[in-house]
């Protein structure tokens, strides 16, 4: 049987076996009447509960805090304009045409999130922000820049953002890669990044 024949057979079977009810498509509300007023605090709290952390600039300009966080940490890969590639500092610029495997030896990846979700502490990373998708998981650690003005209260708001219509790849990443597959013991860095830190900072003007 060819795939086309199978397609026809499957559709015929679906139509022949359709359950005898005709329910309407339900509306999905936003469920946001009790959304937190301080979205940054709510986001940070959930991020912590999911194993991530907030990178505190400690009074410095956020970008200076970022530079300090990556200084002398081995190979850095950056996909953000706030941190330029600089071979003398082992900072590599991520470019869209790079081989996905080339990020395998990176210690820290730096990327900007499209937006954040307060309900879950998730950041949304898309193929545009990542440039090379494996930037999200091949490095050992990840630092994510997030505009504090771009935090939505919950997943209902999140899925009304345009990203899911525009990008071939988008991920809600929530804290680091984790596994509890052996006796429930939680370990960070099962396959993807071992840590995820979020630095609040608005994108550079222009």
């Amino acid at each position: 049987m060819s795939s086309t024949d199978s397609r026809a057979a499957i559709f015929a079977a679906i139509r022949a076996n359709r359950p005898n009810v005709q329910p309407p498509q339900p509306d999905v509300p936003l469920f946001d009447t009790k959304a937190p007023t301080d979205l940054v605090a709510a986001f940070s709290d959930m991020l912590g509960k999911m194993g991530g952390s907030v990178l505190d600039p400690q009074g410095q300009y956020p970008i200076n805090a970022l530079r300090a966080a990556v200084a002398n940490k081995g190979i850095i890969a950056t996909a953000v304009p706030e941190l330029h590639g600089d071979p003398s500092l082992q900072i590599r610029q991520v470019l869209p045409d790079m081989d996905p495997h080339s990020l395998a030896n990176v210690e820290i990846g730096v990327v900007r999130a499209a937006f954040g979700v307060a309900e879950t502490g998730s950041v949304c990373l898309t193929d545009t922000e990542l440039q090379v998708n494996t930037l999200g998981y091949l490095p050992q650690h990840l630092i994510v820049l997030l505009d504090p003005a771009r935090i939505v209260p919950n997943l209902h708001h999140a899925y009304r953002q345009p990203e899911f219509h525009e990008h071939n790849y988008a991920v809600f990443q929530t804290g680091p890669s984790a596994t509890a597959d052996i006796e429930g013991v939680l370990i960070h860095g099962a396959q993807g990044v071992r840590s995820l830190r979020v630095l609040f900072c608005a994108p550079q003007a222009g």
Partner: protein
Amino acid sequence: MSIENQAAPTTPAGRTGDGAPANLTHGAGASVTMPPRGPEPQPRGAIIRGNHPIDQQEAARRFMAAPQHLAMHDQRLWDLRQKRDKQKDTIEEWEDLRQLASDIKTHTLTHLDTYLEQFERNAKANGVIVHWAKDADEHNRIAVDILKSKNAKRLIKSKSMLTEECGFREYAGDQGIDVVETDLGERIQQLDDEAPSHVVVPAVHKLRTDVAEVFARTLGSDPNDSDVSYLTEQQREHTRPLILTADAGMTGCNFAVAETGSVVVCTNEGNADLSANTTGLHIVSMGIEKIIPNLNSLAVFVRMLSRSALGSPITQYTSHFRGPRRGAEMHIIIVDNGRTDRLGLEKFWTSLKCIRCGACMNTCPVFRRSGGLSYGATYAGPIGLIIDPTFNRHKYSTLPFSSTMNGSCTNVCPVKINIHEQIADWRQVLAENHEIPAFKKSMMKAAGALLASPRLYRASLPMADSALRHIPRFMLYNRMNTWTRGREMPSVPKETFHQWFKRTRGKDGKKKS
């Protein structure tokens, strides 16, 4: 708020207490640290004898005879159930979400053709190549044909119950493809040549010492080191080179969004993203029932899935694949494999609503005490009891009886499948189709005749003056008195209620003074 001032450690996490934060309790982790147990030989699953009905009780008995395994398994899964309860308590609209999720699935399953067509149209427009497979064989053939056409030798894949259902790994292996599972639990099971025992935590029935034995045998790790951080790190270090040299990636699909043509995959390890994004070829295995109408619906399911499964608000990674990366190929194989037949079963079609969260397994007291492999089928636990017989009515005819029908599964189900009622309905279907053992059937015939006759019933009861007091036969249902293997018999009173009433009140029911 969790604030970290120090730079991240630049060395691997190492063992617990040595750089890695010890006793992490968020996300999918256990909320209490369990005592190390074992070693104790791992009890294996049901003995498969061709098409013979599975003897779940026999395998369960062996599992319960391994106290270390039993205690860990029960405690781990009960903890997941409790973590789920805590999540439920944080969401005011929880029951509304369950109803919405159920209603969305009802709507979608009754408009499956419309939404599949819309999905296909959008996926194709996004540059995805769409295939259709009527059954497991066709799915496997299509996938391997794609791989061969790209000369792919090594395939990295994330966990997919559909590929388990199809026996894909074995088929691909026979065709010379090196398949590497990238989910830790699934990888453990692959290396141990054992099926996953749970849809979300595939190796939950194994002690850390079992894993140490498997990794020592297959990866060459230290057989005497069963530290979980060490074991996890061993797997990461062994799998990463395989990921980096793979030719193709494969993922399952948790949700397929008709509106955008996207597939959504949820993992905690990020291994689906690695599998899909590292090579130039991404193949998705998708069951036809995974379809949902739109992104607004997706929000409902993503909010429920990990909360129900693991008691965490969301999986660490929720990944949306709408089309291929630049220069890469993306294929989606849409599979029926019995689903359209199930759609036509009046009492059972709603089982297609299942989103494979495993909450019914975590809460099931039978599952927790017998282990998922005791069911001898791809799907274990409550949801398995109502799905498995659709694959093979004879072989899985015994499974719907491995339940007390207590209904907890129905209550935790995020899409409100009436699981325990369907278990009862399956028993009826099986009994009426002569798929229950003859001795059971004749016993029920005898019990039915006895209980329909007040005279016969009275005669069967233990007599007050009888020297030999025994439990009435109709309550034992068996010549062998299995009751007393693990319990004492109830003591038999001097007289039955019936006799007491007759003696003290007489036929007219008035008190004798």
